């Protein structure tokens, strides 16, 4: 292994790391002999798909294995301390003080019952680094450094009183509270919107540099990691694929797998002519909807043409999922009309007839919760066939097999249960279930956001092929602009329950942009190590 920065001091060395995970009664290898080294002040990016073992390696750098995992081989040396032989007490002294951890979901990691500052101060006081009052003062300074609003009083709020991006920064501040030598960031921005992600990335980058902290940055997003890391390790199935400095990795990848990762998000749908006179399949006029007194959808107007894809883009809280709930009849609108092929749809799904229900189908964000784990795949796909089309017995089995072929899965999957399938396969089953009803419109609610990039690109291609073959329309709800660019014919941009811009893809995504569209577009990380710095400079100068 080439030591790329030999001059600075070595902080962490993991040699031949082997970690096993337990499935039922047997142990299987999930990390197979990976070497990791890290110098002081260096940021290492660990990247790979889910199941690559990247989070497991990140945790191993703390001398910790998740429940159900065990470290079975390799050396683990942190600044002269052998982490494998260290006692729990020794590790306890290291954790929080010299090695800190930032989890993926800050919202789930903070204790909702305590003020942020008290959670911040816990670690330094416990470790005897500083007194409580001193820790509070440090906290205010760190909040300031991390650009949090009103740093004097920010810490005295409870976790639910601040936004997701702020919470993630507060967690970074917490990790910094003892000025550790090493911080492990485990997908810290994956759950955030692009615009919020920028703030968090900038904050992390700034603070790591300022305190010369070494960091391991775990993510599945190569564009994000290229902003943060000095050096990147690409992992797959618990093995190292490639290791190089960030710039070299982006510019001259050696392995095919890395090239595949780099070339994701380049898929583009062929533009199709949009005929203005054509009667829309779905037409929404002056739609207003409320959650209690809260006005979630304000005067929505849109038309979806047959056999096209309309993308609805917006950040969380923009009302895009609520729009789907209105169309499917889960949330009756206050005013306005929803017309399907010129006929008004009843407000609630209960009032709609079988035929109306059949023609609008839905695909969900989380395939894990969208499939009943107690039913076999054949039953899941077969139920709409029986329910809507009256198919039974052999006829139904035959159609299930056809549908499985259509979504490019083996026919014998009909006998399996969802738990035996991967995330991408499960999402394909959800697509097949929707297709089984022979719908005219499918509402796709963030269908790719729970999937790895390579997998989600496959799903997008599949959806496109199905549209070409079956002439089905999609209403594609997403926060991910790469997906929008890939698959949409028309785009609707939503902000705080209102449509701020809509039109054909080429119009919306070609300058001059609408202000908000511009903000969204410019916030999508690019595969360029200088992208974040340039963007921040540009925004500061404006």
């Amino acid at each position: 292994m080439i030591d790329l920065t030999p001059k600075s001091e070595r902080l962490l060395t993991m040699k031949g790391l082997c970690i096993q995970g337990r499935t039922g009664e047997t142990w299987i290898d999930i990390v197979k002999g990976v070497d990791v080294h890290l110098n002081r002040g260096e940021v290492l990016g660990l990247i790979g798909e889910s199941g690559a073992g990247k989070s497991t390696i990140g945790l191993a750098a703390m001398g910790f294995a998740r429940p159900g995992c065990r470290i079975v081989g390799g050396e683990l040396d942190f600044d002269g301390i052998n982490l494998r032989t260290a006692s729990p007490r020794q590790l306890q002294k290291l954790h929080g003080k010299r090695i800190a951890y930032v989890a993926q979901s800050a919202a789930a990691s903070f204790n909702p019952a305590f003020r942020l500052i008290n959670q911040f101060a816990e670690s330094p006081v416990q470790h005897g680094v500083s007194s409580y009052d001193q820790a509070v003062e440090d906290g205010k300074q760190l909040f300031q450094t991390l650009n949090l609003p009103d740093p004097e009083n920010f810490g005295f709020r409870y976790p639910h009183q601040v936004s997701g991006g702020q919470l993630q920064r507060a967690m970074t501040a917490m990790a910094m509270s003892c000025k550790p030598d090493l911080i492990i960031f485990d997908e810290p921005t994956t759950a955030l919107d692009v615009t919020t992600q920028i703030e968090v990335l900038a904050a992390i980058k700034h603070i790591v540099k300022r305190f010369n902290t070494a960091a391991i940055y775990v993510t599945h997003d190569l564009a994000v990691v290229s902003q943060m890391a000095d050096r990147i390790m690409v992992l797959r199935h618990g093995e190292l694929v490639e290791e190089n400095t960030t710039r070299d990795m982006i510019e001259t990848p050696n392995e095919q797998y890395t090239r595949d990762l780099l070339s994701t998000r380049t898929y583009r749908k062929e533009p199709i002519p949009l005929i203005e006179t054509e009667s829309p399949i779905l037409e929404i006029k002056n739609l207003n909807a409320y959650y209690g007194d809260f006005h979630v959808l304000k005067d929505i107007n849109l038309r979806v043409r047959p056999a096209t894809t309309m993308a609805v883009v917006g950040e969380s809280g923009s009302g895009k999922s609520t729009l789907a709930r209105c169309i499917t009849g889960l949330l009756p609108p206050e005013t306005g009309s929803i017309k399907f092929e010129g006929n008004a749809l009843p407000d609630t799904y209960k009032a709609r007839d079988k035929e109306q229900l059949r023609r609008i189908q839905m695909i969900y964000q989380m395939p894990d919760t969208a499939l009943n784990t107690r039913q076999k795949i054949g039953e899941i796909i077969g139920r709409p066939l029986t329910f809507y089309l009256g198919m039974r017995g052999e006829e139904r089995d035959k159609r299930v097999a056809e549908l499985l072929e259509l979504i490019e899965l083996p026919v014998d999957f009909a006998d399996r249960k969802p738990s035996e399938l991967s995330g991408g396969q499960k999402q394909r089953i959800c697509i097949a279930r929707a297709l089984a009803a022979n719908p005219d419109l499918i509402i796709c609610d963030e269908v790719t956001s729970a999937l790895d990039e390579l997998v989600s690109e496959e799903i997008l291609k599949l959806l496109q092929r199905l549209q070409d073959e079956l002439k089905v329309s999609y209403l594609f709800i997403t926060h991910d602009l790469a997906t929008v660019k890939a698959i949409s014919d028309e785009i609707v941009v939503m902000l705080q329950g209102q449509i701020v811009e809509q039109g054909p893809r080429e119009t919306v995504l070609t300058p001059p942009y609408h202000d908000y569209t511009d903000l969204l577009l410019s916030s999508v990380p690019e595969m360029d190590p200088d992208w974040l710095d340039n963007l921040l400079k540009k925004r500061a100068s404006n």
Partner: protein
Amino acid sequence: MFSNFLKELKNAPFAAQLGVFIIILYLIAAIFAPLIAPYAETEIIGDVWEEMSSKSWLGTDQIGRDLFTRLIYGARNTISIAFVTTILSFFIGICGGFMAAVIGGWIDQGMSRFVDIMMSIPILIFALMILSVLGTSTPVLIGVIAVLDSTRVYRLSRAVAMDVVVMDFVEAAKLRGENTWYLMSREVLPNTLAPLVAEFGLRFCFVFLFISSLSFLGLGIQPPTADWGSMVRENSGAITFGILTPLVPAAAIAILTIGVNLVVDWFLHKTAGIKDS
């Protein structure tokens, strides 16, 4: 399926095996009572509260019937009534609980508040009241206890179903236009089976004890039918003379309760996925 069960049992902890052994023993006694019992159910064979002897293994009761015989017939009556009652109580409770969870809104509110009212009245006093009005025939006994006990089942099944109905697959089924019965039986029930089965074991014990206490109070199974609760009551006078007779049916109740609980614990342990690390 049976061979699977045997295989599981072989690998089960000793406590679970013991529990299964106890239950099987009781079941054999209950099913083959007339074959096993040395005397007839109500036959008087000797003096009051005779000592244990080769003639009557556990002695005789307060009017000279063989205690061992009474115990075996008691198993038959008590266990079968408890079993039927528990099944009925689960049927009512699960239907109600799932319906409340799936439909929600006013139906949920109405049913839940009604159940709250039912539960606020001590169950034993409530049962005594109703039984003294309606009489103490076996069908009435089963019906009353099942309805009263189903309030507890309702609470549990509503709670576990609530976790399931928020899942996207239930929403998908609703949007497909499925009716409430399909949602309850095909989407919710399979995903809540584990806690409900475990609860079944526990509630069976409670029902069983409840029938015994009702019998002890004289409003349960009526003489001369043998049943463990009333056997304890009828023989309770013997305690003052230092005779152990009432403790024998009491022990029978205790041992079955323990046996069922051992099996339930094992089942819970298996389905909850709690693994020793």
